[in-house]
């Protein structure tokens, strides 16, 4: 079998008749008359794949926590578990794993009955590189990255995700995409449907 390594140089005939030009022109005319592949952005939107690394969220307690890790951490820190609230156990492993740790502002609160609960969880997205190390570090599958990528805001405060926002994103995620198989290919029509059914909103501007 002969392997072709280089294109042969053009012969004189090819040069005189502009065959290389004609070959190129035939390619462009074929593309000119085929269907366009543009998504008309503000009117049409693509749903990113499930493993897309967008804005962060907190998954909430719904009985599908990774066991036995979740119970072990809850027992160790005496965490108060409440369905519908964040799974966070205030272990600080996300902050530990982060290359820019100051973007996390995590505080726990001790309740009168001696149990603890997460009270503050702020993430400053201005500093974030979306590397996903914090998600890998989370032992209870709480912190995750969602498919929200339209993250522009009017103030710097808009890009700080607080606990309520994180939980809201998590609830939204668990409702619409938690059960979905991990689709990473591009021509998946189901993703188009998914986007239009859900309208995840970012926090309102508060001044």
């Amino acid at each position, binding site marked *: 079998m002969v392997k072709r390594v280089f294109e042969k140089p053009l012969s004189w005939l090819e040069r005189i008749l502009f065959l290389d*030009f004609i070959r190129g*022109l035939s*390619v*462009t005319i074929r*593309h*000119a008359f*085929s*269907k*366009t592949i543009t998504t*008309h952005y503000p009117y049409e939107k693509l749903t990113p794949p499930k493993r897309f690394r967008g804005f962060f969220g907190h998954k909430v307690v719904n009985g599908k926590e990774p066991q036995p890790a979740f119970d072990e951490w809850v027992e160790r820190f005496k965490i108060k578990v409440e369905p519908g609230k964040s799974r966070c156990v205030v272990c600080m492993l996300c902050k530990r794993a982060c290359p820019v740790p100051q973007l996390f502002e995590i505080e726990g609160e001790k309740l009168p009955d001696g149990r603890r609960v997460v009270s503050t969880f702020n993430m400053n997205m201005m500093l974030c590189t979306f590397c996903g190390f914090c998600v890998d570090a989370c032992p209870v599958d709480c912190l995750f990255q969602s498919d929200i990528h339209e993250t522009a805001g009017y103030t710097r405060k808009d890009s700080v995700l607080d606990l309520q926002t994180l939980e809201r994103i998590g609830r939204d995620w668990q409702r619409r995409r938690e059960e979905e198989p991990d689709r990473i290919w591009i021509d998946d029509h189901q993703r188009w449907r998914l986007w239009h059914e859900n309208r995840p909103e970012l926090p309102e501007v508060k001044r």
Partner: protein
Amino acid sequence: MEGLLAWLIITLVKILVILGIVLGIGAYLTLVERKVAAHIQRRPGPMVVGWHGLLQPLADGLKLLTKEDLYPRYGNPFLYNLALVMALVPATLVFAVVPFGPEFEVLGIKVKPILTDVNIGLLLVFALGSMAVFAIALAGWASNSKYALIGSMRKAGIVVSYEVVITFAVMGPIILAGTLSTYDIVQKQIEQKLWYLWLQPMAFVVYMFAMLAETGRVPFDVQEAEAELVTGFTVEYGGMKFGLFPLVEWYIEVLSLSAIAVVLFLGGWSPINIPFLGFIDPLFFLGPLSPFVWFILKVSLLFLFVLWLHWTLPRYRIDQITTTAWKVMLPLTFVNLVLTAVIAPLIWR
């Protein structure tokens, strides 16, 4: 006196019609270019302003007109503005000798749809064409910027090389027709039942190359060269002044040179030609309008071909361009000229 008045009115109407058509179409060709470029790259192009972006040129013009008028502090304001005039006027003047159709009668007055049927029309075209180099050299010089100067130097080099080539390329049709008047060249082609393309294919190819080079189209757009020279000589211009240069260079000049190519090689307003036998007119049902439609059709097809080339080919290096001009194109045109000059008088007349 009566005749003079009628002549004056007819000429004024012609000037207004030609200017209106050329400048209006020039603006809308930006949309055509964007659409063609987009579809070649499998994008839809402008879609938002108007139906399929039909109002986009107006929006662009409005935006460019309302921008702040800046000019470089250490540049030369007079030359800076003069360059614009020097670019626009010769390019538009070429249309004075473009024949749009055959002679017709309105209210008993015979009207030729050509502004001035001078007997040295083609000479005028190429004289005006070589004026374009002044505009670009002045724009580069007056901008007081390295990028602009490099761009204008490149362009000047290209235009100087290809001006020679294009002049020798059109010698063939001129010899065959025996006249320099654009109107008479088309008449001769119709009389001889022959588009000169069939006898002068080499001259046509060389003419197309020179046309691309003169108008700064790909593959000869080294004076633009977005990647290395920002946008070449227009880099210090802002607002509508910036918009005017591509308008002139890419649209009006391409349009005028396409029209001249149609006149010289494709038989002007004549329908499809079978060499030496006659003409076939599939548009006969348009009656007296058919020649005008044919002319516009040919010019627009040639313009679309230029666009198609633009969005297909890569860019040549400046030394490759001038080498092609002096070492390939010019000898080819010489050969063509000598062959035509020797054979044409023997067989032709």
